[in-house]
């Protein structure tokens, strides 16, 4: 068990009264906690509970948490003394393994987390250099290695190669790209999951035009257009029987899809924002 030095991540089921316990057990998302960051921005942080172990196919290079990283971001490999920097894609390539592996937190991060889907969850997952396959064998765990790196950014890894003030700066800069922060005047997304599909849609903007369009619609989600699906909303998370509708927004050529819950002509809740584009 290590401590999250930022104090901004979830407390989890660890020691009472100690903020940000970093637990190595994957846990189930229980709720979303509202946290006001040092920069005055409101973040929504996941709170986890009992362990679960969904399976993801690592051969697809789809480490969901990783895909939250803007592609232009350079990830510094602190293990090498910070001399190497790689893009998201490079990391994904180096992480590619041949068999499905069983781990949960990254998958959880994508499915139910708002606010700190990347560093926060990586930190909570803990840092292990190998992972267990379903057949009992083990693989080198690139995620674990990366978690070590991420943890060190926050001063929580096995080494403290990055000064804390720099860690916080990276942390703030990183969250600048997180689209699911509650926009001013908007409704915070519920965080019940994401239906973004690789090659079709993304959860993060990759340029200023996309970022502005996303902020615009998150700030006033009721101005979107209702897209009528053939059989309505059938996903149990946002079912039509509960008033959910698929919604779309388009500005400056940027198309954004999300879901909205309508009651008596009033938009009560929103979720699953995604930008259409590869």
């Amino acid at each position, binding site marked *: 068990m290590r401590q999250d030095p930022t104090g901004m991540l979830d407390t989890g089921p660890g020691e009472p009264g100690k903020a940000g316990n970093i637990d190595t057990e994957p846990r189930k998302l229980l709720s979303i906690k509202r946290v006001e960051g040092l920069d005055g921005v409101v973040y929504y942080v996941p709170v986890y509970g009992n362990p679960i172990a969904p399976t993801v196919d690592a051969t697809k290079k789809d480490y969901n948490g990783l895909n939250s990283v803007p592609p232009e971001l350079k990830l510094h490999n602190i293990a090498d003394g910070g001399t190497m920097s790689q893009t998201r894609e490079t990391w994904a390539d180096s992480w590619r393994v041949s068999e499905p592996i069983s781990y949960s937190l990254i998958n959880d991060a994508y499915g139910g987390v708002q606010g700190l889907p990347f560093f926060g969850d990586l930190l909570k997952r803990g840092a292990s250099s190998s992972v267990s396959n379903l057949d009992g064998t083990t693989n080198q765990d690139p995620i674990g290695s990366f978690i070590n790196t991420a943890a060190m950014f926050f001063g929580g890894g096995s080494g403290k190669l990055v000064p804390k003030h720099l860690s916080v700066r990276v942390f703030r800069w990183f969250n600048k790209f997180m689209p699911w922060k509650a926009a001013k005047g908007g409704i915070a997304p519920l965080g019940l999951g994401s239906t973004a599909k690789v090659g079709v849609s993304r959860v993060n903007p990759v340029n200023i035009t996309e970022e502005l369009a996303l902020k615009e619609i998150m700030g006033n989600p*009721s101005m979107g257009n*209702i897209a*009528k699906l*053939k*059989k309505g909303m059938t996903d149990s998370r946002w079912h039509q029987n509960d008033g959910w509708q698929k919604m779309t*927004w388009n500005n400056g050529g940027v198309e954004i899809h999300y879901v909205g819950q309508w009651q008596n002509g009033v938009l009560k809740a929103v979720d699953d924002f995604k930008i*259409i584009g590869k």
Partner: protein
Amino acid sequence: MKIKCNDTSAVKLKLSEVNTITSNEFDYNNWGLLANEIYLVLAMILYKDTKYLYYLIDINGKPNWFPNELFEVIDNILPNQWSFKIFNTESDVDIYCIWGYDELCNQEDHYDQLIEREDEALTIYYNQKRKIEEDSVH
């Protein structure tokens, strides 16, 4: 079939009928729709909960359904490739009927996939558009 956009603003639309928007302040110009521009119609749809038709046209490479009240028909010849299907008897489907290219009427998932911007659906859409354009030339 070709239509000309008369207005991009939703100010005159009846929200009880055009229920894909929630305010008369909505402006389809945000979607790239331009007044006085002429568009090729790839399909028409009638939903069960409104008597207003919607046209399927594409703007900036993205096909979307727009309420017919914004347009006037300037070429009313229907393409040879169009099919027609009534969904009224399918209780779980929100569509009453579609006139349009084959896959929209006869392929179960194509309508939703087009909204979801699936590559395969977009490819079908643009292939059909190309055929209609070629036919209209001859």
